């Protein structure tokens, strides 16, 4: 009896301590997920295990009756995105309006390729928005220039532990956090099993290595006369580094030392033997074997979708949303095209991105972060801090960081993986577990202000110089390495 009372008292005491702990904790959503156990099975096991009250949490940060005004730019969803993305964005704006009816919101969606340029220009003219949700690549540049307000998850009631370490690194400059990750994604490798079979390849097996990709691409082209791998090498488009860097890293190369355990961003790796090997692999596919689209130099990934759905392209690196996109395209096709498109969709397969010669598997750790701009650079000269916090809190919540990344990405807030919506995603989005399981292989772009120029201009230029024969592979790599050296050296 006494023992029972004691155990009950200990139980009650523990509950009280736990309750007090949760009340004093910076994070209202408890401990984050255990990324050390990350696997498709683990992701499935935690999905749907936690209830969240987004509005309640954000109202504890910024009261619901707060009256203010907010301007915001964000990377817009494309017309070609699946319908559910459009629907979720509409729902988000409605939810924000419901949670904060007195905040006047002016939100503008800008395309991925235009957002950086537009923001740079607006900042020069002190005409920037108060809040910007920016691709992961851009944060360091604006933070280093002093345009951004310090901002960390704790400021809106979350914990830094609730976000991927790599993602948190991308918002850090000189030891200070200047933003919060909204979504993080890694891509995967997709292929058309029917084309593989007709070309004499195992239809259910992705190429294991990048050397295999080169060989498969050639075999497919030589056998069927269609393109094997969907190479992309257009400058000024995010698509190019997202597809070439996994190859570069897998071979053991890099632009700087971003693929190392503790990057210092001092050494240039672009002219290493490993980097040259990766470039040589692209050269072999484009020039030697002619097994990839000739239009790769002017193509973005969007232009690869048409040949893929029409059965004229066998393999490419893509988002999890590619499956939904292909379903959309197939549903819009008519006549004989419809039959072909349906056949392609049923033959789509997702696998892990191939490894390099030493077994290294890599993928770009992509995503977006949300930032608050300093008042002096904002249109009107003043940031409404509370309104900005309200938006940041809502967007980075487990619920909305997941819903706004529904088909193309993953929630930046790891708590999103525990929600019922994650379970719904896993049940409804085919191959999501494959792309999600690539996350631990994700390597962030160098967190330096020069990263956008390196990734969007120098890397594509290197590819174009080699693939057009303007330079040899060796010269193109050396030329690019020199450009990176000059750039990082401040020339």
């Amino acid at each position, binding site marked *: 009896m006494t023992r029972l009372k004691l155990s009950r008292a200990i139980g009650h005491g523990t509950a009280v301590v736990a309750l007090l702990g949760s009340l004093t904790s910076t994070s209202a959503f408890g401990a984050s997920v255990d990324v050390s156990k990350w696997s498709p099975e683990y992701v499935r096991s935690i999905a749907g295990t936690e209830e969240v009250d987004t509005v309640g949490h954000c109202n504890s940060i910024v009261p619901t009756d707060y009256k203010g005004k907010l301007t915001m730019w964000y990377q817009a969803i494309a017309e070609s995105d699946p319908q559910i993305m459009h629907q979720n964005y509409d729902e988000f704006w409605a939810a924000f309006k419901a949670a904060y009816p007195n905040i006047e919101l002016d939100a503008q969606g800008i395309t991925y390729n235009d957002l950086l*340029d537009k923001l740079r220009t607006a900042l*020069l003219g002190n005409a920037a928005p108060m809040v910007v949700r920016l691709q992961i690549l851009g944060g360091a540049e604006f933070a280093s*220039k002093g345009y951004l307000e310090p901002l960390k998850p704790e400021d809106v009631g979350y914990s830094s532990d609730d976000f991927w370490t790599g993602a948190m690194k991308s918002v850090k400059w000189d030891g200070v956090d200047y933003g919060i990750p909204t979504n993080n994604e890694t891509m995967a490798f997709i292929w058309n099993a029917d084309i593989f079979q007709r070309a004499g390849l195992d239809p259910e097996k992705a190429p294991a290595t990048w050397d295999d990709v080169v060989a498969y691409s050639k075999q497919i082209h030589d056998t069927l006369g269609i393109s094997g791998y969907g190479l992309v090498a257009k400058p*000024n488009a995010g698509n190019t580094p997202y597809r070439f860097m996994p190859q570069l890293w897998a071979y053991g190369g890099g632009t700087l030392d971003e693929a190392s355990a503790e990057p210092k961003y001092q050494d240039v790796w672009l002219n290493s033997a490993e980097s040259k090997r990766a470039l040589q692999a692209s050269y072999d596919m484009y020039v030697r074997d002619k097994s990839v689209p*000739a239009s790769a130099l*002017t193509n973005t990934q969007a232009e690869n979708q048409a040949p893929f759905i029409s059965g004229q392209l066998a393999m490419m690196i893509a988002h999890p949303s590619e499956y939904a996109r292909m379903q959309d395209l197939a549903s819009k096709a008519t006549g004989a095209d419809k039959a072909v498109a349906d056949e392609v969709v049923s033959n789509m397969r997702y696998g892990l991105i191939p490894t390099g010669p030493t077994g290294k598997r890599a993928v770009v750790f992509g995503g977006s972060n949300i930032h608050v701009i300093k008042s002096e650079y904002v249109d009107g000269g003043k940031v409404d801090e509370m309104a900005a916090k309200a938006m940041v809190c809502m967007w980075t919540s487990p619920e909305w960081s997941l819903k706004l990344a529904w088909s193309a990405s993953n929630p930046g807030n790891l708590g999103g993986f525990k929600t019922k919506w994650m379970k719904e995603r896993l049940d409804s989005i085919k191959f999501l577990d494959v792309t999600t399981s690539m996350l631990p292989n994700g390597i962030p772009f160098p967190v330096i*202000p020069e990263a956008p120029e390196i990734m969007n201009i120098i890397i594509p230029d290197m590819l174009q*110089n080699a693939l*057009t024969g303007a330079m040899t592979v060796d010269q193109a790599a050396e030329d690019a390495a020199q450009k990176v050296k000059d750039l990082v050296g401040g020339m």
Partner: protein
Amino acid sequence: MTTSTPQAASRQTTGAPAKASVWRSIWNHRTDYAYVLPALFAMLVVIGYPVYYTLDLSLFKTPASLQLKDKVFIGLENYSTILSSTSFWKVTLQTLIWTAFSTLIAFLLGLGAALALNREFIGRGILRGLLLVPWVVSAVAASYVWKWLYHSDFGVIGALAVQFGLSDKPINFIDNLQTGLPSLIVVNVWKEFSFAMIMLMAGLQTVPEQLLRAAQVDGASVWQRFWHVTFPHLKGVSMVTILLLTVQNFNSFIIPWIMTGGGPAGATDIWITQVYQLAFGRQRWGAAAAYSVILFVIMMSLGYFYVRSLTSGDRARAVE
């Protein structure tokens, strides 16, 4: 002690009234000056200040890690870097090729179309309207359409070439170092020739009908009538058309930027795409400003000599 020659004394005596008459003339036209003053002021603000700012900015380095206000003064280094870079001269050559061929071919096609449409025939109005379509179509829309027509794997032109047995595989128009620029020139000519056509059609209205008839009565051939009667009357409008096309082509941006972004490997880069890339892609605001100043000087020089040659006849007549 100073001495004065009779000629100098004469200049002094005649100078004072001349100066007074200039001021008097200005005073007499004070209302005219008042009318143009607002426009002059607006020009100072929207043209004068940007020109000054560009000149100033061109003397600074603007690294990616610094705000523009923290730019570093480097004197004329941007100019020397640009002028000593091989890429500047490569791009300059490409710009000259782009401008010369675009201007010349658009002008000749426009001239041919204007001469053809100057005659009376059934459907002339419809044809004139149709030929104007490229000019009125948005350059952005046209660039995207042509990009797909040229597509190296699935382009309509390539497919037709294969269909008619002209090629055994789709033609690589814009993903190729050799054919990239000529392919863009074709698009530019298609877009611009109607402008030349309209200008020259207007010019043809000034050719006196009786002169042409007299030449015909005198037994002049079609070519002789064109060369000795029509063309001299078109000289003025031709010069203006060529000047406008040249300036427009030197400043071209939309077609090359949308269709190739200056690629592949810089094969279709021209001055303006390079300046844009330097400024907005690479944030080398100082270098981009220096580049713009260099272009400004080159284009002003070309413009000066062009206008001089254009007005040489007038000046000769004025002297006579």
